[in-house]
């Protein structure tokens, strides 16, 4: 496991489709609707505290969570999308 303060990339899968406007609400994470009706939230998370903060936001919205995964290498398309406003 990575140390608690090392920044990481994460993929968070949600059960439903989430509108793009939530991107700014989730601190610049990209929102990618998946064909199976789920949503992939991808992005750079500063540390464990930031990750827990993000999960708490999802919890407070009542967004059903499917999985959370640390991804080793930032997927190229995520970086590209991350730069979009």
């Amino acid at each position, binding site marked *: 496991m990575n140390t608690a303060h090392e920044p990481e990339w994460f993929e968070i899968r*949600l059960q439903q489709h989430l*509108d793009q*406007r939530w991107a700014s*609400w989730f601190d610049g994470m990209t929102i990618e609707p998946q064909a199976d009706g789920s949503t992939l939230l991808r992005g750079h998370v500063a540390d464990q505290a930031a990750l827990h903060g993000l999960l708490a936001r999802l*919890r407070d*919205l009542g967004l059903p969570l499917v999985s959370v995964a640390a991804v080793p290498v930032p997927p190229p398309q995520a970086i590209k999308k991350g730069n979009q406003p």
Partner: protein
Amino acid sequence: MDTALLATKLLRPRLRPDVVPRTRLAEVLDRATQSPVTLVSAPAGFGKTTVVETWLRGIHRPVAWVSLDGSDRDLSRFLPYALTALEQVVPGSMSAALTLATSSREPVETVLTGVVNELSVYDGELTLALDDYHLADSPDVARAMTFLVDHLPPQLHLVLTTRADPALPLSRLRARGELAEIRAADLRFDTDEVAAYLNDLHDLGLPAHAVSALETRTEGWVAALQLAMLSLRERGDVSQFIDRFTGDDRFVVDYLADEVLGRQPDDVRRFLLDTSVLERLSAPLCEALIGEPGRAHTMLERLDRENLFLVRLDEHRRWYRYHHLFADVLRAHLHRERPSDVAELHRRASRWFAESGAVEDAVRHALAAGDSAQAADLVERALPDLQRTRREDVIRRWADALPGEVLGNRPVLALGLVGGLMASNDLAGVEDRLRQVEQMLARPEAELVVVDPAERRSVPARVELYRAGLAVAAGDSAAAISSAGRAIATAPPGDDLTVASASGLAGLAFWATGDILAAHESYVVCARGLEPAGYLTDVLGCSLTIADMELALGRLLDADRTLRGALDLARRHSGSGPTLRGTADMLVALSRTAWHRGDLPAAARLLREAEGLGESAGLPQNPYRWRVAMARLRAAERDWRAALELLDDAERVYVGDFAPPVHPIHATRARVLATSGDVAGARAWAREHGIGTSDELSYLHEYEHVTLARVLLAEHHATGAGRSLHEAAALLDRLLVAARAGARGGALIELEALRALAHHAAGAEKLALDALGHAVDLAEPQGWVRLFLDSGPGMGELLGALASRRSDPSFVQHLLARRAGDLLPARAATESVAALPDPLSDRELDVLRLLGSDLAGPAIARELFVSLNTVRTHTRHIYTKLGVTNRRAAVSRAHQLGLLTRGAGR
């Protein structure tokens, strides 16, 4: 604490009229009614609060309600809210716990033990409901709650609503069958309930298939149903809406909120988005945000009427908030549609809060607006006030929230945050911060940002002040004294508080080294500075210490004067308002000087008066000091059993403070044992506490060593052992040298009197009379009497011999007369029991005696072989008859009336 905010947090939620009866939940709620702990755990918008409030209203049990928020993660905020809520339900029950929780550094377990013991004898049941517990679930709060759950008295039911399972021992509670759980699956609306909500309550007249479609799509999520209802309310195309909705796989709340928002007229929509940045809303505040005078009030009324997710926070419809879920959706819309407006809206909110004096909110919005400079300004301006009102917890939080870069050129602010850290005992990193402040001071003045130049002038002195505080905490007296000295020397004229605080720290350090003269001088300066700065309770606390030192120095008259002056100050400032905290402590301390003068009736009167003022008039240490003072009176009456019981009771309610414990209760207890003839018990005390005749002597343990000498003399008297006498004499000689070197006149009188007894016992009559003559010389001008009355066998004979040797024997004759009078039974401290119109029954006396112990209600019941209910009933009767509202007050009242020992003697 902000009392207005307190009131809204402790207000039970107002139920909207449109509540669907949840008959499906009846069974689980019945179980919850009996269960010690109920957990209502589900995501936002599942109607947790509504279900709990409806249920609690139905069972007619008193409810202490707290709506928690993020700042309650701090135990120093959480605990007072919870205790105040309980106090409102059972008045008087939490006064001791509240005093401890708000003004001492006692571990939370001590505070909660008092709470548990108090409620465990309460005659009735009650519920503590903690709403939105997930917001407060920090390690500190969890530790406190775990302790409470593990020691929960049967009277108290705990109900937690939360979005995440709390860090409590849930599996243990489940295994013991002590947990009722209501989870999302229970809270979900089933098809019948969806129909009842949409068709019965809101007259939508939906066909069965539409109801079932909505139920499936929302999964019975109440918040979503409510949004669907708002959307459906005024539209004709119901079937089209349902079709589109069921076919869409978007996040249901997002979809529905979009629908609701989309149906609002532009002005309403704009208002909702503008005000979504707020955590609470009022008409004037909203007006400041939207910039249109007069419109906010109508708008809020309209939203309230149309049930647009507005929650009332008070009875007067002044403050509202949006439902959490809806607010999140609104904010997401605002961020997406008008990202450039967000900062300005926060800025306006910050300005409004700043103007209305709500600095915490103003700072939060300034930070949200990205205006760290503005936030820094606000904090810097607010510091002096927050320090005065002891809101260091707020300052402590800002120390983390303010970005480091705004502190880099703001010495006053950076130092103010250090003060918050120190008051919260968060000392790591303080020295680094102090060094940073000093580096700032080395820079040109023009590079620094300072709001109030007067505060800037105090910075160098306050850096040294905090260094002195660090040194005291580390036990380094020499460093503390030199830092405090530099602080006093560099403090600008008029900065009373810095001088007072530094003097107080220096006094503490001097005291610890045994230099009482220097300590006394420092404390006097401290008290003199605290008064104009408005810290009156601290002036009283300081006066106690000053009087203590004056007694040690032999200045009984000065001690009396100091305490009377402080009492006058307290009375002047209390006026017709509530009694200033610390007033009772002055009376208790005055009873000690009266006791030293030999005026037992006055001492008894003062203790009665102190007790009559109630717990809130005393510092946290007062309950134990009162018991020690009462024990001295009982011992003077030769009621050893009562004295010992009081001292045991004092140990139980003991609370420490900053001052070194120079008169430990256990030593006072040993004195009572020795005087009463229990030499073996007194000897055991010395062994247990490792106090020996060859110890190195210091002022801090002087009282214990003098006690040991008394024990040895008593032992010699009882057994005739020459060794005891020899050891006592040698110890007394060494103590005398030490006391003389420290100019401790009070100790000198006592030591000379004891030496006289030792010489007398050894047959050295001339040496005995010399020593006693010296003691009397020192005692007479100040009126010390008690020391000659308590001292053991031989004192009467010696005083008689001394009287014939003195040119003016009047004082010695007075002492002789008092000794003779004391042999007669006198109960100065006991009120006539006839003062009780309705005397206690024998059984009530049994319960009362156990109320003075550590035992909780069920243990008392076991002890007396009765049911807990019987104990509760007895307790209620005891409280009524004694005219008190809590356990501690009942026990002190009983001591005063002499009820406890009389019962024990049966």
